[in-house]
């Protein structure tokens, strides 16, 4: 092969190396995208039946059993979740639904496991490993728990499952013989070290059925401090189907929280647990990353009725920082096409 014939391939190889080094993408993704519809007014944070949810187009995200880290259950029950999203410029609400024949919302006995669902956002650019992130690629996880949801209405304890239980003595309790001491009965809260250290699982009451966590790979899951628990949730089971709403402000001051903005695209992954199948911890169903896109905000009517949603204006200022260099690369690529064609014509005429 002559040097002339190696010229263009060599140029293309070098160009590809430069583009790889600069992390310039030449391919666009057409994957599953969840579009958060923008509406005005309050979001339906505790009403999965609200009509405004129909303003958002749902996606069905397939799930498969987590089979990377042991222990694992290969025949998990939740095969897909249906998700919708709404935002009003300041808050976002996600409605996640999935089929589950059993309502497992009690975890008093050691052999009982809860139904749960989680959504996961990468904290850095790009997509870390979709299952719990990776070192250097932390993820923010919102984990809704069915038993926490039920306990908000009425906290269950050992006596709920074992009505005939009896306790001989509770040490450090400033009351007389008690069937079941509450945290307030203790003479010093430090005698409940888990509660005193801010362990959410020891809390007598739950402000939210959603736990806000961060992870950077298997075995690194960490609950955010109590003051940083800013995700609200609401879940209801009916006719073999769970419907769970996650809601939070778009912006958060916590460094370990994902920040969301309109007009941008984020990555999002789902996980679900069927407690009746013994699924817990890493024994779960997970999805691959899907895209989450927040529509640009246009003020519409005053009430969250089935509103008329117009196309959002493009974020020209934001796009200017992206469009410029990307347009140059796009022109360069098109120029290559033309150059290749021209070279083909020229060599043929020789």
């Amino acid at each position: 092969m002559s040097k002339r014939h190696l010229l263009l391939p060599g140029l293309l190889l070098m160009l590809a190396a430069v583009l790889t080094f600069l992390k310039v993408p030449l391919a666009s993704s057409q994957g599953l995208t969840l579009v958060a519809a923008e509406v005005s007014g309050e979001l339906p944070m505790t009403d999965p039946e609200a009509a405004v949810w129909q303003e958002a187009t749902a996606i069905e995200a397939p799930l498969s059993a987590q089979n990377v880290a042991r222990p694992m259950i290969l025949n998990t029950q939740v095969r897909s979740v249906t998700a919708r999203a709404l935002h009003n410029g300041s808050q976002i609400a996600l409605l996640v639904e999935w089929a589950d024949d059993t309502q497992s919302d009690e975890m008093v006995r050691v052999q009982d496991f809860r139904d749960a669902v989680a959504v996961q956002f990468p904290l850095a650019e790009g997509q870390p490993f979709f299952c719990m992130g990776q070192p250097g690629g932390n993820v923010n996880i919102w984990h809704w728990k069915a038993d926490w949801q039920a306990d908000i209405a009425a906290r269950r304890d050992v006596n709920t499952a074992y009505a005939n239980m009896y306790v001989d003595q509770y040490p450090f309790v400033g009351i007389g013989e008690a069937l079941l001491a509450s945290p307030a009965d203790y003479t010093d809260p430090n005698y409940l070290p888990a509660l005193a250290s801010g362990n959410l699982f020891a809390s007598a009451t739950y402000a939210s059925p959603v736990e806000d966590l961060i992870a950077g790979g298997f075995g690194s899951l960490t609950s955010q401090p109590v003051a940083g628990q800013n995700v609200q949730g609401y879940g209801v089971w009916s006719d073999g189907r769970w419907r769970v709403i996650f809601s939070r402000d778009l912006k958060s001051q916590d460094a370990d929280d994902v920040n969301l903005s309109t007009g941008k695209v984020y990555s999002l992954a789902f996980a679900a647990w069927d407690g009746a199948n013994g699924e817990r911890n890493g024994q779960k169903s997970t999805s691959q990353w899907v895209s989450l896109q927040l529509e640009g905000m246009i003020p519409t009517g005053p009430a969250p009725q089935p509103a008329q949603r117009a196309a959002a204006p493009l974020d020209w200022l934001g796009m200017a920082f992206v469009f410029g260099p990307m347009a140059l690369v796009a022109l360069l690529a098109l120029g290559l096409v033309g150059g290749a064609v021209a070279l083909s014509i020229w060599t043929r005429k020789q």
Partner: protein
Amino acid sequence: MDSEAVKSLPSLFRWLTLAALADWLITRTLTRSAIFVPKSPPVITAYEALGLIGQWAFTLTSLLALVAVGWMAFRLLRARRGIVLPITLLGLLALSLLFVVIPPGGWLAVDYHLLVIAAAGLIGWGMWTRAGGGGRKIAWVFPALALLAGEALQLNQALFGAMRWPGPPPGAMTLFNLGELFAVLSMVGLWWAYCWHPGQDGIRPYVLAALPALAFSAAHLINPAMTGIVAIWSTGLTLYLPWPVYAVSLWLAGVVVFASLRRGDAVGWAVLLLAAGGYAPQLSTQVFLILIALWLLSEEEGAPGLGYDIAVWAIGNRASSL
């Protein structure tokens, strides 16, 4: 497309096939095994180097795919055989580059998927209206249907979003599974169309192709869950059918590739591009690989038609590779 016509194709297509294979095998297959390797520093260094090579291969594949589609559009225009397909291909090019800057959504996403479906349909129309073997035409239909099923799935989702319908779009899993069935049958059909004559290619392609098929079978029997995970990452196939079906399809795909390379025609390249493109492609580059593969398959040996005219013109003008 006979061997003379193949030689007239720019070496661009050979480069593209090699780059696509490197991207597929390294980025989407080998690097997925990282979770099993020891995490010692030399291994991590080697893995990172492998990942960098895979990223380079992906960028090169994307670049060459863009150039190849542009080349196809240009040659179709020069051959003066219709304007609709070249315009469709150029439109796809433009939209795919636009989506690098602007997130695909709304009616633009609908347009994109419609253009992909239109391109596949126009390539097929050109093929079916020409004289030639009916068997090869039928065999071409299966990979086209697999692409159309994947695109219909994404078109459905995009249409629901553009129309503000609540959804979710119905029948998604049914459509997805049907497309996977077509993808698996594609290799059976291609083998039947190009290689089934007894003694045509000897036994060597069958023996060589058995190796990857046996490797897949062994992997599935040893660790079916992990094989399924790697398969879906690598090819987009969920392995919902009985696993021997996939093993046979893989075997026959290998037979077609080895026999084609021996004969010097373009079918093997097309099969490799189809494999690299995967099923229900998520990236625009993968869509282009499949369209290029369908175009290569649509060029029938000795049949007067668009591709043949281009090849004759190219040979007559002493076409040299790029």
